[in-house]
């Protein structure tokens, strides 16, 4: 590969990391301080931890990016090379192994932030929480993946390279679905609590029906049955656009997962909102706030704290269940693994690696959810 190309890749990794780190820190700051009423202390030095977290995380991602590049490609540099432009190559190659690199990089970011930030739940008398030892588990799995790929590049490095596209597919199918699930779940949850019996009835039927049908069957429906229904409808109405309709596998997978998980999520939201005492809504309304304002400023910020653990669980379940989309023509990690196995006949190694990659993602997500939970807790 051209040095120029490598350099540009390296910059992409760097800038991507920088932007992500910045966004994360800003989001955390705004969220913690404004919405959740957490105190950041010591008060005057609020900026320093963010800069620290930013720089630390960046350096960590960069160095490990380089290291991963060295470890996981066939490139074996000399000492001199490492200190020169070739390091850029290492970092550039890091995108090969997005997950282990960023898993570790972000673990580092979060650790540094956690160490430095001194965010503490309101009214808590304990000293600020320092390091979450469970990150070690994430790092251990990360090292296991790296180690396997380093010491036995054949087949492990080949497997990872082969399922690489699948990792991306799994990540974005999960993230997009989850984003939509958060929105539609909220609508469903509010619908379940609506005073209007028609709205409430519709929401209830939706939730009950969806929860009674296996996810896999629902995915099959959206991919195979739904397009066929559309076509028949097109023939019936003589609309050419409908007759020509072809289902997009990823679109249908996202639709199917969203439709299903939003039902579960609406129950989570409902329980969360119901757990906030009626007096809160009454106080807000008696001050002249509308229902929507009261929800937005008073009820939901409190409900968020309550529902964070179950929402985190839903995310992790969704991440795992996204492997089901492999049966409806989506080339996710699981499907890529199956394809690899079919042409190489090494099931044990293949599925070990795929399992480890899933484990890495879920453990990592769990830690993040847990971290957010820690600092949004309200002491009662």
């Amino acid at each position, binding site marked *: 590969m051209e040095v120029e190309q490598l350099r540009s890749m390296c910059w992409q990794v760097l800038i991507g990391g920088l932007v992500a780190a910045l966004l994360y820190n800003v989001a955390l700051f705004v969220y913690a301080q404004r919405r959740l009423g957490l105190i950041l202390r010591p008060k005057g030095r609020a900026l320093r931890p963010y800069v620290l977290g930013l720089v630390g995380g960046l350096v960590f991602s960069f160095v490990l990016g380089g290291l991963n590049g060295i470890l996981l490609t066939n490139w074996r540099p000399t000492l001199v090379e490492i200190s020169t432009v070739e390091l850029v190559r290492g970092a550039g190659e890091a995108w090969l192994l997005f997950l282990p690199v960023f898993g570790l990089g972000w673990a580092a970011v979060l650790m540094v932030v956690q160490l430095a930030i001194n965010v503490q739940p309101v009214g808590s008398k304990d000293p600020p929480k320092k390091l979450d030892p469970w990150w070690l588990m994430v790092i251990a799995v990360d090292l296991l993946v790296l180690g396997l790929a380093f010491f036995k590049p054949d087949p492990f490095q080949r497997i990872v390279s082969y399922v690489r596209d699948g990792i991306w597919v799994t990540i974005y199918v999960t993230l997009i679905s989850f984003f939509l699930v958060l929105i539609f779940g909220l609508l469903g949850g509010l619908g379940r609590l609506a005073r209007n019996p028609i709205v409430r009835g519709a929401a209830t039927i939706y939730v009950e029906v969806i929860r009674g049908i296996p996810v896999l069957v629902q995915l099959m429906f959206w991919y195979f049955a739904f397009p066929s229904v559309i076509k028949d409808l097109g023939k019936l109405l003589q609309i050419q656009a409908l007759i020509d309709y072809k289902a997009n596998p990823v679109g249908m997978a996202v639709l199917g997962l969203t439709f299903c998980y939003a039902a579960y999520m609406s129950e989570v939201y409902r329980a969360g909102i119901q757990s906030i005492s009626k007096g809160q809504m009454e106080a807000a309304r008696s*001050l002249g706030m509308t229902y929507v304002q009261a929800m937005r400023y008073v009820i939901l910020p409190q409900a968020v704290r309550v529902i964070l653990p179950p929402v985190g669980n839903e995310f992790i379940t969704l991440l795992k269940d996204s492997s089901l989309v492999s049966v409806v023509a989506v080339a996710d990690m699981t499907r890529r693994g199956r394809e690899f196995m079919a042409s190489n006949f090494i099931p044990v190694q293949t599925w070990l690696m795929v399992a480890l990659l899933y484990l890495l993602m879920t453990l990592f997500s769990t830690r993040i959810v847990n971290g957010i939970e820690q600092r949004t807790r309200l002491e009662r």
Partner: protein
Amino acid sequence: MDEPIIQIRNVHKRFGGVHALKGVSLDVKRGEVVVIIGPSGSGKSTLLRCINRLEEFDEGSIVVDGIPLDTAANINAVRTEVGMVFQQFNLFPHLSVLENIVLAQRVVRKRSRDEAVQNALQLLEKVGIPDKADAFPLQLSGGQQQRVAIARALAMNPKIMLFDEPTSALDPEMIQEVLDVMVELAREGMTMVVVSHEMGFSRAAAHRAILMDAGQIVEDAPPDVLFNHPTQERTKLFLSKIL
């Protein structure tokens, strides 16, 4: 101007089979302080909550400051004119004391942040806890929380304040600090409807006292008359129980 600021006419309210208000009529004049007493379950809270429409009523009419409680827009208009203080304080636990008082000023009254904060700090001064602006509700004592709740309601510049047993959830030593704030408010000419059995407050501030029983107003008289020389048997009976 002389027209009563609250006009309640023949209001009925049922909760399923329970007939909580049985045709209540009541006028409250501008600047008047009305105390409501009565046994538990007699409909005091329900009446109060009907005034700012936290509770819908089945029959009758209520007009507050010339605005009839009918359309959603009118109900919100009335709510911004009527402050309410609850037995359980109902402060927003996720917001600091200051933000509790600032929030509705910003989103309902559309005030600038500076103005809202200024106003909030002044009100905290007035209720006697200027140093607690950055504290969170759950870090405060009950009496302090209730005073914040009063400040929060006052921040909207209401014309009427409703108090539903504001001191019932407080430890005895904290009752007086809340009553002092209420008495001060009454002196300033605020129109107040107060459900409370605190005789001290009634003597110091009330213009009228009302006894409710079984969803009806039984007696309506100046406080010294109602407490010392009640005309109704039911009032005598009730007073004998609480005194």
